């Protein structure tokens, strides 16, 4: 087994990993990024295809009876495959409370605090609000529906430059228009000296020295060891010794690693793997009435461009349209016209009739909501994990009321409802109410105390100095909007704190500080294929 020593080891390479990788390398620290998924060259590796084998190479899932989540295992994390929606979390999000009335976010963290970090993230990803003349047809039709009912509707913000509207954002942008982390943060990190290792899985974390005198990183001994195994070739094993360990393998990946390491990290909070928020995703579909213009499920960017905040204050939800490609639509749900009593109706001639109308006459609505963090990832030993959702009466009411609202919007516009029964990977129905999401956060949440969370407001794991969580796992609540920009901004904030603490040996920063000048955005696009990964070479 090889041993490699470094100042900072970052596990993961997605939205929570990119800021520490870049900023710490820019500050002159030795940085190694460990990604368990494959390397991606965004200019040659992406494909416009619906072939499940291509998609499953990068996108993974985990399912329980009531909750299923999708996440990426690839260099750049989900950034290569997301819909590019880049929105700030509503202020209301930060005042969510638990069932005892206690705030779910650590004191001091709110939208005002995050806004300067959102600014940096916006610049790095070149986020812009979509121009009216670029909104895809399905988004315009959705907006027209909201307009008909007097509801407001906003043009969404995206991380894209020069979009060609090919409609395959979710399989990776073959044009390099999407501003994924593969064209900004990661190549810049490598340019600054960071090394990125792909196909390398972190298996366990061990403590070498838990408590050491705080000071500049150069004066601090190696504190953690991470044992990794190569997923390709001869399954090489590598031991990393690091002074700072930053966990950013995603909500599922980070929790898995900590749960697998619990024997070594005996003082970990009992909250690891708990409190997973899932953004309360509720979907509804319908066929448009004849007097409506066509939508288009397949042309234009994968997200239809419009989102309504009309019900954010009153119900804590946002509503947008969705444009699932055929694979996403057919693999996820059985579609059948509401009230269609013909048998069969989810296959055969009636289903073909419906699918013929899918591209231009079907409207799919999605609501995201501030549902409580009730998901739990449990370690069953070995490599086995279970994903559970504690179903509660308020959650059932939320689902029923939100679905009713979506149906009401569709029906009052004259639509004919389409029943969407979500199915498992073998086509079987779920036995109960089921939520599915790619916006899961919070398995190792920030909190004011170890009794309620895994890390503090600075992202540092309780009882483990120098061990940080900087990804979606640290985000304590549902956001009611897409989560990527908030994860990125929070990771910038956590990295800012790390730099202040370890560059000069100062004290941990308080929550209320402005970003350091060194965090200025450098939104240059760097081609990844010009940069060589470096570890062990």
């Amino acid at each position: 087994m090889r041993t490699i020593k470094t100042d900072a080891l970052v596990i993961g390479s997605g939205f929570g990993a990119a800021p520490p990788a870049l900023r710490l390398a820019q500050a002159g620290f030795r940085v190694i990024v460990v990604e368990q998924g494959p390397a991606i060259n965004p200019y040659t590796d992406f494909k416009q295809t619906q072939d499940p084998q291509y998609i499953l190479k990068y996108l993974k899932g985990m399912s329980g009876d009531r909750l299923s989540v999708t996440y990426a295992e690839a260099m750049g994390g989900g950034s290569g495959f997301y819909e590019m929606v880049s929105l700030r979390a509503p202020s209301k999000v930060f005042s969510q409370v638990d069932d005892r009335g206690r705030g779910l976010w650590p004191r001091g963290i709110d939208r005002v605090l995050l806004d300067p970090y959102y600014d940096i993230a916006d610049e790095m990803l070149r986020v812009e609000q979509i121009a009216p003349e670029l909104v895809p047809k399905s988004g315009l039709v959705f907006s027209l529906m909201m307009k008909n009912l007097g509801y407001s509707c906003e043009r969404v913000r995206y991380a894209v430059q020069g979009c060609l509207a090919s409609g395959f954002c979710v399989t990776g942008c073959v044009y390099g228009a999407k501003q994924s982390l593969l064209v900004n943060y990661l190549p810049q990190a490598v340019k600054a000296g960071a090394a990125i290792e792909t196909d390398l899985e972190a298996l366990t974390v061990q403590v070498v020295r838990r408590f050491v005198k705080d000071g500049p990183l150069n004066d601090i001994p190696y504190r953690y060891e991470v044992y990794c195994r190569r997923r390709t070739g001869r399954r090489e094993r590598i031991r990393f010794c690091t002074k700072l360990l930053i966990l950013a393998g995603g909500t599922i990946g980070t929790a898995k690693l900590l749960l697998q390491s619990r024997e070594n990290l005996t003082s970990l909070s009992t909250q690891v793997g708990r409190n997973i928020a899932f953004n309360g995703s509720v979907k509804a579909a319908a066929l448009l009435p004849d007097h409506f213009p066509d939508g288009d499920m397949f042309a234009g960017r994968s997200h239809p461009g419009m989102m309504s905040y009309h019900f954010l204050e009153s119900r804590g939800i946002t509503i947008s349209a969705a444009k699932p490609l055929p694979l996403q639509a057919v693999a996820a749900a059985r579609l059948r016209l509401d009230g269609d009593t013909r048998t069969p109706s989810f296959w055969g001639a009636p289903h073909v009739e419906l699918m013929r109308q899918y591209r231009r006459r079907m409207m799919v609505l999605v609501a995201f909501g501030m549902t409580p963090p009730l998901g739990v990832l449990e370690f069953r030993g070995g490599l086995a994990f279970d994903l559970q959702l504690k179903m509660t009466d308020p959650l059932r009411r939320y689902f029923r009321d939100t679905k009713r609202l979506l149906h009401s919007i569709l029906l009052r516009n004259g639509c004919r409802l389409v029943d969407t029964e979500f199915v498992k990977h073998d086509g079987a129905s779920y036995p109960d109410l089921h939520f599915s999401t790619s916006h899961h956060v919070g398995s190792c949440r920030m909190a004011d105390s170890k009794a309620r969370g895994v890390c503090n407001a600075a992202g540092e794991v309780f009882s483990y100095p120098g061990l940080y969580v900087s990804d979606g796992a640290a985000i304590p609540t549902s956001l009611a909007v897409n989560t990527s920009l908030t994860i990125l901004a929070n990771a910038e904030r956590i990295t800012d704190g790390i730099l202040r603490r370890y560059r000069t040996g100062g004290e941990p920063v308080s929550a209320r500080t402005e970003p350091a000048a060194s965090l200025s955005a450098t939104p240059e696009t760097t081609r990844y294929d010009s940069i060589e990964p470096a570890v062990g070479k």
Partner: protein
Amino acid sequence: MATPPRSNTGATVSRRAALKSLAVLAAGVGAACTPLRMAFRWAPGGFDDDQALVDRVLRGFATAVVPGLSVDDPNLVRHFYDDDYPLAKFRGYLASDLCQESVNRFGTPAFDQLPLAQRTKIIEGKLAKGGVTRRLYRGAVYLTQIACYAGIYDPDRGCPLIDFDGRRRNTSVADSTYPMPHRFLSHEITSDGNPL
């Protein structure tokens, strides 16, 4: 004279009771045979050897699940031969089961020659059964829909049946939107699209 069989408790049981027990046992074994035959991928009637027959029957199945597809489409049943998917192991069994049911219901083993309505009836009946049979047919319907609608074996062609035109290299933004979009837009409550 044969000795009457004895029960587990040693009590003598009648011939009628013994036959009844055997019938229950036989039914159990019969039911167990479905997964057993599937596990060993055993398909009766020469299905394991006659790939052309299997292909014809599976094409009859796929065009019943997604009517409107061409029976001659080269990719129509490719998912049944693709080792990346679980059905590749069971295609012989599936084909033989469809033909057997065709005999049971309509008196002919030529499932692929049956009219659409009769093929649909057979599949519908299988989906209504329980256990392994339902799982097999549900999986076969599900994967057939995915393969056909998503055009997984021909990204350039997509699925013309549902106007999915597949990979797009020459796209224009103008095709994806409407002129004069302000006709559609509702009032906005934010200045930049971010929620407040």
